[in-house]
């Protein structure tokens, strides 16, 4: 059997597990500043896990693409430690704050440069802007069958069979490859990678290719930025916390009264 070629698109974002107090908003530069380490977006890690599992079942080559203004290969090398065969960074000043359409266009340009593919996996949405568009737009651009919200992915004789999450269960769907699948968290978290393995991969001599907009043949004039009119801290939503005070008994009584009022 010929080797299955899987592409996983992974985005680097500030850790969404960071506490609220580490986040601030620059309303002038229109940026969210998070004082937390960079990580791979959680759903993209799920996508990688799905790919690695397929590789355990069948002969496969996994290529990870990560696009951004500046991508840390230290963060992304984790994908190699987890089982990816190849990592390509798509880095350019021009890739800063791209909208979903242009992000997909740049990814599509990179994918066309690769030596063919059977399956493209993306996370269902990124953990910073929560837009959930790039994967499906990418599928449309490449005119592929698109399957969203996968919780299980299997390969069957040139087709991909996916359990796709529904609000009240799942649907089993099938498409001929090549195809695009967006992956949901039900697939499972990315496998544990030991510290030694991680360090070895980070310190390894292996050089990671980096492609610019020019390398991709992307006309920078056609790249659209996110059309942000304003960015602000969330209004406190009229919420200011009323702390109950006094003995437990009294606090419980007050809280019970709150429930009664909301009934």
């Amino acid at each position: 059997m010929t080797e299955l070629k899987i592409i996983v698109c992974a985005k680097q974002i500030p850790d969404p597990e960071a506490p609220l107090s580490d986040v601030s908003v620059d309303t002038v530069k229109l940026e969210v500043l998070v004082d937390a380490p960079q990580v791979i977006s959680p759903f993209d890690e799920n996508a990688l896990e799905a790919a690695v599992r397929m590789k355990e079942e069948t002969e496969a080559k996994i290529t990870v693409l990560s696009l951004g203004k500046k991508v840390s290969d230290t963060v992304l090398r984790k994908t190699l430690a987890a089982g990816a065969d190849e990592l390509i960074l798509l880095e350019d000043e021009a890739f800063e704050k791209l909208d979903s359409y242009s992000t997909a266009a740049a990814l599509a340009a990179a994918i066309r440069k690769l030596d063919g593919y059977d399956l493209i996996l993306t996370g269902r949405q990124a953990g910073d802007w929560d837009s959930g568009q790039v994967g499906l737009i990418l599928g449309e651009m490449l005119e592929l069958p698109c399957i969203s919200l996968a919780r299980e992915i299997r390969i069957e004789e040139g087709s991909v069979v996916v359990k796709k999450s529904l609000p009240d269960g799942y649907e089993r769907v099938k498409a001929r490859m090549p195809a695009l699948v967006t992956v949901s968290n039900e697939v499972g978290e990315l496998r544990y990678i030991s510290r030694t393995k991680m360090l070895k991969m980070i310190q390894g001599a292996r050089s990671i290719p980096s492609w610019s907009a020019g390398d991709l043949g992307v006309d920078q004039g056609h790249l659209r930025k996110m059309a942000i009119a304003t960015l602000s801290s969330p209004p406190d939503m009229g919420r200011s916390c009323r702390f109950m005070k006094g003995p437990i008994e009294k606090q419980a009584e007050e809280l019970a009264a709150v429930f009664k009022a909301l009934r």
Partner: protein
Amino acid sequence: MNDVLILGKVKEGALDPRTLELLSAGKRLAGGKGGGFSLLLMGDAVSAQADEAVSHGPDKVYKLEHPLLRGFRPDLWLAALEQACRQINPRILLMSHDFVGMELGPRLACRLNTRLTTDCIALSIDPESGLLLRTKPVSGGNAISVFKCPGEPQMATVRAKVFDPSEPGAKKGEIVEIRARIDESMIKVESLEVVREDVVALDKAEVVVAGGAGLGEADGFELLEELAEALRKSFSNVMIGCSRVAVDKGWISSDHQVGLTGTMISPDIYIAVGISGAIQHLVGMTHSKKIIAINTDPACNMFKVADYGIVEDYEEIIPALIEKLEEAS
């Protein structure tokens, strides 16, 4: 008069509650600029729901019926919706941010060469440019971004329960039948089977009692269940939620998880017990109508988004609360 078009949905033989919310959003947007709003219903048979929809006051209810639109098959629905949009030519197109809108929205935006903003919590018209202002929480709800994009239709998917549902009124719209040319050759993704599961439908809960790392042990959820049981005497749909940490520790199954990698919910009441409030959790619940936080750490983030706070050991306050609730009922 095709300023605002709403993609409606039918659920259990009637208009989906989300569609009623979109109708009130559409009404408001159209009213603000003196334009009109219309509803599009697609399916194999949607006449009864079209009749129901006219009383909500849209100028037109577009009815697109085709035997192949039975059940949601994205490839066919997308093709039909694309054709409908090209016929109706709306300036603004709204869909619900549910599994239909989440799949059709990005794909349609790509085909119509326009831009979509997903999961909006507010919509208005910019008085200067006349463009749609699309408000969306980002970075786990820690920032609110307003997007303004040229290109039509201006597309948005709208979060559930942020608009009040529309009420029927005196104004009656007109039903217009439209057609789409779709056939089975358009199906690239074949449906093999649909499996219904008993899932913890957290997004349907009226009240969610959620626990996190602060519970200290799996048994903590038993106490939360007792509280939920006491609340069931006054509230109809009370469920147990949790943070990711509680799932990671193996205390509870992942279908209870609230947050970015779990379920995004906005119940009437959210009770957070021993949950400190990581960004990825807050994004899933800050839009709850009332939030009650119980935590021993007064500085924890959950209190910053809560309406009511109790700084006590949950093992003491919850039994006392249950007692008071029992007395009151």
